[in-house]
């Protein structure tokens, strides 16, 4: 093999790939895609759901054959000899297929054997992998019993049992908490920088793309732009500003209003203020609210800002009107609607939730944050009455949903982590079912279904089986179904996991609007910046309450002395690590 070929482990030219949907409709997953990954570099594929990232990675891995175009991987034409490529590369699919009933060690051994790693080589590689992934303590644990982050690390370890010539990672950090995410990226970066490995990674976390050498921005099967992260970031040059919040206004309310302004591409709450990206560098007049100047300060653009600018050129500007409830929730905003007192839940000798207490008032957005396995979901399931508590008291809208009459559940809406409406049923049929389930009938039912379809722009898909909805619309349908009966309280369990930036903005726009109209919202999330939308948050780890307060109070935990305002993610990591080392110390001493 010539050095020339070695220098470009992936070379794709004019790739095309189409699929037929169940309905017979042809979907162009890849439409004339070209890119190259140079040896020893990190290439990121970024783009919203359905952009074609996974298809592209599967083509490179030889798992699919392109309809058209040239694709050479490690110097081999993939289509003609996929096995030759598969012998030499490493690939970690989006959902890495660990054998959940095998232990960590057994999974690793399996892949070592499949890659022909000799026992001498193993003695050298294993300690390195265990050190890198910190899985050494869990060798004997079944893979199914690992947390999400550890599973991903084990998946990565399995693909790295022998040094591949090229490593493909498909959304390796979806559903992984910030701590594990940071660790995973440290491993990948070390491989690229120190061992000269070539890596192609797809991601919807844009801060991750910032770390790469080359970014390919994709949209609807096409390459929108590619270049170094700096080049992408430069798209937003002179257009990024920070707007301070007027007194007494939550950042998310300002964000919601700014986001609706013409001339504004993007707005996100950040450290109690709002970061905006403008359509034109000199368009600051768009930031005036009710005729008042808001004194925007220019800010340094980030990759995400550049990405949003690129997207503003192709994606139609969606309605950003938030949403209107038929009637706002009545009641006093001082009412405590959710109360958790000394809650404990144990499974055998394992305590998932360890004496947690908190209160949520009407109209608040309350966030449950924590690493994988911290007890968020368990708390959530107890609140919704899906799991009995071992000890303690919980009240939701004045009742314990586990034991109360069914009518008490009438007051809450629930959106699960995973899309969990009936896939074979159409949008209309799902809405009709949930409306009836909540006791709506006759004209009222028809009105509410029409409302949901209007608010979530679902009319166009009314008769499509919901499993075939594009990702973002599934989310909308789930929200629509949960709001049909105008609940006082909305539970959202990692509702934005795996969603792209656009979908997440839209989602939070609606949540903000709901809370302004009196709906109490309780959320769990892995995206730390989303905590900025909350009124108050609680950080859990190992089932314990580590910190509770407003976003500003939480951020204050991690503010470096005299330094700049810390991001929520830094604060989160600082709090968790501090608590963990405090817990480790007494043990070490004993």
């Amino acid at each position, binding site marked *: 093999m010539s050095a020339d070929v070695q220098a470009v482990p992936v070379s794709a030219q004019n790739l095309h790939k189409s699929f037929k949907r169940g309905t017979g409709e042809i979907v162009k997953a890849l439409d004339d895609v070209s890119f190259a990954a140079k040896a020893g570099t990190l290439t990121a594929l970024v783009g919203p759901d359905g952009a074609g990232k996974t298809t592209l990675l599967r083509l490179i891995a030889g798992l699919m054959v392109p309809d058209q175009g040239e694709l050479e991987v490690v110097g081999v034409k993939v289509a003609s000899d996929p096995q030759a490529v598969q012998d030499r590369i490493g690939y970690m699919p989006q959902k890495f297929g660990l054998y959940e009933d095998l232990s960590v060690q057994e999974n690793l051994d399996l892949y070592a054997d499949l890659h022909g790693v000799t026992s001498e080589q193993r003695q050298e590689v294993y300690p390195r992998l265990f050190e890198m992934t910190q899985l050494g303590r869990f060798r004997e644990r079944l893979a199914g019993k690992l947390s999400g982050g550890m599973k991903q690390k084990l998946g990565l370890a399995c693909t790295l049992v022998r040094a591949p010539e090229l490593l493909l990672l498909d959304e390796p950090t979806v559903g992984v908490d910030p701590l594990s995410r940071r660790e995973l990226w440290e491993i990948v970066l070390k491989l690229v920088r120190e061992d000269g490995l070539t890596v192609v990674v797809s991601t919807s976390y844009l801060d991750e793309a910032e770390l790469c050498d080359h970014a390919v921005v994709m949209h609807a099967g096409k390459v929108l732009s590619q270049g170094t992260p700096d080049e992408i970031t430069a798209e937003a040059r002179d257009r990024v500003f920070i707007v301070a919040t007027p007194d007494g206004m939550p950042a998310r309310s300002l964000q919601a209003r700014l986001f609706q302004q013409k001339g504004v591409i993007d707005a996100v709450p950040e450290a109690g203020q709002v970061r905006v990206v403008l359509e034109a560098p000199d368009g600051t007049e768009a930031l005036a609210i009710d005729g008042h100047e808001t004194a925007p300060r220019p800010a340094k653009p980030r990759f995400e800002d550049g990405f949003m600018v690129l997207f503003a050129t192709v994606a139609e500007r969606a309605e950003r009107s938030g949403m209107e409830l038929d009637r706002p929730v009545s009641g006093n905003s001082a009412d405590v609607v959710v109360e958790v007192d000394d809650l404990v839940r144990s499974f055998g000798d394992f305590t998932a939730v360890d004496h947690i207490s908190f209160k949520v008032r009407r109209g608040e957005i309350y966030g449950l944050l924590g690493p994988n396995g911290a007890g968020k979901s368990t708390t959530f*399931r107890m609140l919704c009455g899906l799991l009995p508590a071992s000890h303690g008291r919980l009240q939701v809208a004045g009742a314990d949903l586990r034991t109360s009459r069914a009518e008490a559940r009438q007051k809450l809406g629930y959106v699960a982590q995973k899309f*969990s409406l009936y896939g074979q049923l159409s949008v209309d049929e799902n809405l009709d079912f949930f409306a009836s389930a*909540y*006791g709506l009938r006759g004209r009222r039912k028809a009105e509410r279904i029409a409302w949901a379809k209007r608010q979530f722009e679902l009319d166009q898909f009314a008769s499509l089986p919901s499993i075939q909805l594009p990702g973002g619309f599934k989310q909308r349908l789930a929200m629509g179904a949960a709001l049909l009966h105008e609940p006082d309280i909305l539970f959202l369990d990692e509702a934005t996991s795996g969603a792209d930036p656009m979908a997440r903005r839209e989602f939070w726009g609606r949540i903000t609007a709901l809370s302004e109209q009196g709906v109490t919202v309780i959320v769990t999330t892995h995206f730390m910046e989303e905590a900025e939308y909350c009124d108050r948050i609680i950080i859990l780890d190992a089932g314990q309450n580590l910190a509770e307060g407003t976003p500003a109070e939480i951020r204050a935990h991690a503010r470096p002395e005299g330094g700049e305002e810390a991001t929520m993610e830094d604060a989160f990591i600082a709090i968790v690590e501090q608590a963990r080392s405090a817990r480790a110390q007494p043990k070490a001493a004993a």
Partner: protein
Amino acid sequence: MLDSLLRILALIRKELLAILKDPRSRISLIGPPVIQCLVFGYAATYDLNNVSYALLDHDRSSASRALISRLDGSGVFTRVGTLEVERQIAEFIDDQRALLVITIPQDFERGLQASATPAVQVIADGRNSNTAGTAQGYVSQIVTSFGAEWQAAHGLPGPPVQITTRAWYNPSLETRWYMIPALVGTITMMMTMMLTAMSVAREREEGTFDQLLVTPFRPSEIMVGKAVPAMMVGLIQATMILLVAQLWFRIPFAGSYLILYCGLVLFLAASVGIGLFISSIAGTMQQAMIGSFVLLMPFMLLSGLTSPIGNMPQVLQYFTFINPLRYAISITHQVYLEGAGFGQLLPEMLALVAIAAVTLPIAAWMFRNRLG
């Protein structure tokens, strides 16, 4: 009350939509039962209509020839070989060329004339002893009646006692008349039990069950909403099989449809109860699948479908008391063939009610209280 009813109706509608929406699943609910009914209706028979036999005639008299032509003319027996010596018997039986070898003794005709009861020997291939026994029974009947008639024709005194036989409800003793009505219960149980066992497990696996549990549905409402559609599917399948039985196999229906459908509804409630019970325990679809399979096997084998319950050891007979299929088969036979009324069927119906009354509430309780 009205709210509760409307919720249940919504769930029933949703379940039916989920089952019937996809044309493939629609076909798979109707196609296999009808095909199974047709194939098994023909295949599941203990009646013989083509028995191959070899003949060893040591007598070669006019009487022996008359007996042979009686056998050959019966339409059931096909002669595949005519043997010369005894040692040829083994080869015909061993390689399954002949199911029977019939040996006529040397002094057959003389014996008949002297009323000395000559013995005809029938050797059967006992590898399937049930078939062999049936075939031997056929031969005995033909030979005995031939003997009596031959003696009468030759002016000899006949046997002192004649036997006349008659069979109630199934005059020509066709197994098919027994099997096909029994398939009504067997096939519908297979389909409805699997359908319900999978349904909750599938909702659990897809996460929709949690979604259902946070709505105002009560567990008992979910139970009814899951049970009714499956029972409706079962009734449709039962109707299809009954149609095949009457229109295709032409088995006359002696009883009342009202009574039969009452029995079927109770039976389906009991099997759906068992299905939901499995479903409420199983964590995954694979477990639900294997769980229902492991239960279906004994239910089918110990129902009286393939062999009479009276032949089973006492312990296994006790087990059949909790087997809804046992009662379903008994009810269908009594209504379909015997025209039985409610009074006669009361014990079976009460047993089915009891099974449903135990399994359904347990399943409903498990919906909410299962850990995990």
